[in-house]
């Protein structure tokens, strides 16, 4: 996808927006997996954990998909 803007009906959309949505989806999936397995019991502060997880996944996605 690359870090180039998307033109949708003449409106330029940031690729980062797509990455953010993708990361949100992935975070949800990972969170669900964690909740189903005993690993979820180790989480101390849920909101903080989710937030950190989201940032990690978002940066991973940007790193992987960015240069493409």
């Amino acid at each position, binding site marked *: 996808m690359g870090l180039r803007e998307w033109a949708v*009906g*003449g*409106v*330029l959309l940031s690729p980062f*927006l797509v990455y953010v949505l993708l990361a949100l989806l992935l975070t949800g999936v990972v969170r669900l997996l964690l909740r189903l397995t005993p690993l979820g019991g180790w989480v101390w*502060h849920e*909101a*903080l954990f989710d*937030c950190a997880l989201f940032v990690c996944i978002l940066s991973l996605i940007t790193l992987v998909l960015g240069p493409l």
Partner: protein
Amino acid sequence: MPITLQALLAPNKRAVQFAIKTLLGGGLALWLALRWGLEQPAWALMTAFVVAQPLSGMVVQKGLARLLGTLVGTAMSVLFIGLFAQTPWLFLLALALWLALCTAFSTLLRSAWAYAFVLAGYTVAIIALPAVDHPLLVFDQAVARCTEICLGIVCATVTSALLWPLRVEQQLAGQARQAWESGMQAASASLFGEEQQRKDLLDILGRIVAVDSQREHAWFEGRLGRERGRAIRVLSQALLVLLRIARSVRRQWQQLDEREAARVAPWFSKVHEALSAPDQADLLLLRQRVWEAAHDPACSPAEHYCLARLTLLLDKAVNATMALHAVEEGKAPADLPESLAVHRDLPLALLFGSRSALAFLAMSSFWLATGWISAPGGLVLTCVVCSLFASRENGAQIGMSFLRGLLLAIPVAFFVGQILLPQWSGFPMLCMAMGVPLFFGALGMANPKIGATATSYSLHFIVLIAPLNAMHFDVAAFLNSAQAMMVGVGAAVLAFKLLVLHNPAWHGRRLRAATQNDLVRLTRRDLRDAETWFGGRMADRLLQMARHYAALPVHARERWDDGLHGLDMGDELLHLRMCLEVAQVPLGQARREYLQQLEEVLAQGPGAGREALLDEASATFIDVLQRQPSSDPLRLAVGAVLQLQKSWGKWCRRQEELHGLA
């Protein structure tokens, strides 16, 4: 049917009236703003929606609070821009500090006027942030904001006063009667059982506090409203005293042995009966009979204390009934008690303030790092959400419903603002395009369950459309500002979720420390307003503890007991001091020494192995009291000293049990 559908499709008459009132007020404000060529007519329309409340006194009160806050906020924004226009970081820091201060004060104030502080905080953000690029325009912006907010308030007040006016003071009488009824019930219930007491007590405390908070609104509804407001002050105090006396009667009852209890029991059931269907003449008659029974020479001291307290209970019930009549007739008595004091917690307020500041700084770093032109729109919303809901326990939840309202508003505003309006022109068409979605928004606002979402929907809808005399339509700008708003509200919700300041255990500890501190102060505080001061603060605290009660694990629920023990101790202490006051015997040194020791013990706080700390002092003081020529108040004072000692022992033993458990 789901609540939302019901509120929108099958609204009741009140909701429709409210929606029409709100819409007309908003329409009038918008028309005038457009006619006079004001800079941002949307602000006038928004204000009309923000201050719209079902009752007219509330509209005036909220409007005034908003106006005051705005005036202070605009002055501060001009000052900030004047001082820091060249130094963005310093400007943002100053703004964050101001926001923190305002949030802290609004948390401390604990009344409807707290809204003024919230406004003073975020008005600065609303005016100063867009003016960063052109600092010379800040004065115009400030004047425009003030004018439009005044316009909105005036229009909303006029429509709410002229169309189907609903007044706070009319509802006040009904609410007062309900509070009085449940107060009598709770009092008579606590004469007998401990079960269900917590729920009953909470219910009645909640009612008292709710009725009492209406006073502020009733004040704006003419002479009758003001008189009723004053009478409510008397009633809420009388009910609180009634509840405390009922608990103390119960405590005295527990001290009786079986034979004594059997002799007193008939009086208890008579009082119970009288309280379930209270009539002033009956109460007075019964009081006289109990009083005579208490002075029967065959009575043991314990019986005497118990019956004397029962008399006091009946006295207070008569007082409460008289106060209720005063509310219903709208005639306040001449000698008013102080208004109910509330529990204030400065460190907690400062923490709430710093959370707002932190969220603001995080968002503004994002703004400065990305240089996104629309970011200030989001930043403003972060400020609004953070400071408006700072002191609510469910801040994150309300923030989420705010976000939901925004998400609903975006597609509707896109359709109306970008598709319909470019084809239509003229004010009537504008009204039609905006009026239909806003009518449904106002219907939702009338329903307390979906009120937050509906209010947020209406306000964001107005902001996103931003009606102007010369409209210009720009899809890109629309999408940008919609995104920025979502990011802004999201940041605020995240701040609420990440910095949870409502840790129940910590909160409980703070409340207990404050209770203990109050007890210490009660040993030397002036007696005149001590009842309202202590009673009001304790009621407030018990309510707060109760809110956390459900969130606590079972073994940690002792906080609530702590509160009740503290209440009992304070009650006995007040009773003792009043008895001593009435007795008017020169006790000088002995009284001072006893109270001082009591103060020291209370300052240490209850704990395992401390239950005997009061024994020696109590024995000495009782000895002194009994050496005085015998009189009724002195006998009651002895009873109170014994009760204090017992309550203290009970509190300490409770701590011991919990300690043992842990």
